[in-house]
């Protein structure tokens, strides 16, 4: 665990854990009406003792909104990335491990999907399915899948050519066991690292969709939705964007650092 104890590891891990705790615990301890409670007399008011992060255009407390919005943002991003991993993992592994015709067909398809900008894909899927939480997750998930499949394939291809895979094959290991015992553990770090980076992107993608009205639905709070709602008030009340913006930035920052450090931590070679 030593490699976690670096400044970067502590900071990244700390941010990610804090965000997770906030996402999980906030809805338990803070009634969700706190995020939607309005005060028409205190609209767009700056940070103060009453509202430490200020209020939005409907006089809602930004602290509660950003804290309670963590759950939505983190959940959408997490579920979307999970979904893309669940679909992309078998695709990528089969492609990379078996190669040949399957690989050609799958990768041509993946290449094609990659030609559609992810946001455009998500936008179209959202438009097809309609805007709600589940569909937002599906849209982002599908949009991210080809990307992950591609990376997993590359990793699987690399691992499939490693001497230890050949050694295991010589030792009579079947394909299924090979994938479970050798391929998966060896590509897992890459997936996890890519996953954390994708999480960051998913948070931004949710923000982009919300900006276009297709992500989270009001009055629920999500960071993306908060930034989008703030756009008309930025010049008079910049904090309405800066507060959720900072939440996104810090989380993405933490995820990126966390991903970097995870890479080391997951590798038994760097543990001592």
């Amino acid at each position, binding site marked *: 665990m030593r490699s976690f104890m670096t400044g970067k590891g502590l900071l990244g891990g700390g941010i990610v854990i804090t965000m997770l705790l906030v996402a999980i615990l906030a809805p338990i301890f803070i009634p969700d009406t706190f995020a939607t409670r309005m005060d028409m007399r205190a609209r767009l008011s700056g940070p103060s003792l009453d509202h430490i992060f200020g209020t939005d255009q409907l006089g809602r407390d930004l602290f509660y909104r950003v804290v309670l919005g963590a759950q939505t943002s983190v959940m959408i991003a997490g579920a979307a990335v999970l979904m893309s991993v669940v679909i992309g993992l078998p695709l990528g592994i089969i492609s990379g491990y078996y190669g040949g015709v399957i690989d050609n067909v799958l990768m*041509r*398809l993946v*290449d*094609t*999907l*990659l*030609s*559609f*900008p*992810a*946001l*455009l894909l998500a*936008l*179209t*899927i959202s*438009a*097809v399915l*309609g805007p709600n939480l589940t569909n937002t997750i599906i849209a982002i998930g599908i949009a991210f899948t080809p990307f992950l499949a591609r990376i997993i394939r590359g990793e699987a291809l690399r691992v499939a050519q490693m001497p230890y895979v050949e050694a295991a094959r010589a030792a009579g290991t079947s394909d299924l066991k090979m994938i479970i015992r050798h391929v998966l553990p060896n590509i897992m770090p890459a997936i996890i690292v890519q996953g954390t980076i994708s999480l*960051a992107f998913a948070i*931004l993608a949710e*923000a*982009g969709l919300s*900006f*276009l009205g297709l992500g989270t639905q009001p009055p629920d709070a999500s960071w*993306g939705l908060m*930034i*989008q709602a703030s*756009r008309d008030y*930025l*010049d008079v009340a910049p904090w309405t*964007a800066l507060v959720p*913006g900072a939440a*996104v*930035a*810090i*989380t*993405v*920052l933490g995820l*990126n*650092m966390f991903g970097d450090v995870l890479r080391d931590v997951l590798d038994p070679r760097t543990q001592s």
Partner: protein
Amino acid sequence: MAYIINRVLSVLLTLFLISVITFAVTNILPGDVAMMIMGTQSNPEALAGLRESLGLNDPLIVQYGRWIGGLLTGDWGHSLVFREPIAPLIAQKVVASGVIVVMSMTIALLFAIPLGVWAAIHRDRWQDSTASTSALVGVSLPDFFWGIMLILLFARALGWFPSSGFVHPADDLLGAIRHAFLPSLALGLGLMAHLTRMTRSTMIGIMQQEFIRVARAKGLAEREVVWSYGLRNAIGPVLTVAGLQVGYLFGSIIVVESLFNYTGMGWLTYQALLNRDIPLIQSSVFVIAAVVMLTNLLVDLLYVVIDPRIRLS
């Protein structure tokens, strides 16, 4: 040569797949364009008539055939909402988006490469942390956030650049650049952050290579070792990633163009989607995907020029 032919053939296949996917997806979109044309004046009978006359009642395969046939013969049909022929409409918007995509890419590369190299050669020191952290902040905020900030700073407070609109470069080149600057910068900031990280990690890998030591052992100045021996090798991978980011850019322009009221492909596609203008959605999505793919093809071919190793295989 075989490599190039190979790439081109696979591009053609991918284009075909793109057209099928585009067509399939647009056909499961709910709502339809007849409704949009009639707006609040819609009634079932009028809608049915309009649908019939727009050919929306034909079997899908017929519609696909008609569309793809039209694409190939240059007859891209009419936008149902905009009531204009699609081909010239898209041609114009592609130019508009092309300007900001190229400009944002240029801005991004212009800053990202030196910054990334600088971070790499000062690896794990304050220079690196500074560059890496600011790069992270860059990627951590959505483009529209930057967009709004830039409008407030450059258009509102300083008044240096117009806050919105599009000018065709053929009409007024300087005006075109001025109008495209802020959207390009908004896009470029995130991209720059990304490319900086990429340049940094590539450069770190390359600076550990043996040939770098050999270059130093020759007595070359560090400047030359880094900027010539090192960077020449990093440029290929960085350009490849930059090429892949064109896809990301064409996604982001949807948001940024609507924000800046910059009427390019992103704006057009978004309008088409909002209005269920199926022919326009199909053609513009297809064009975006094709442009993204062709850019990558271009980068691949450029790579052949940059890296002699690819030439033989």
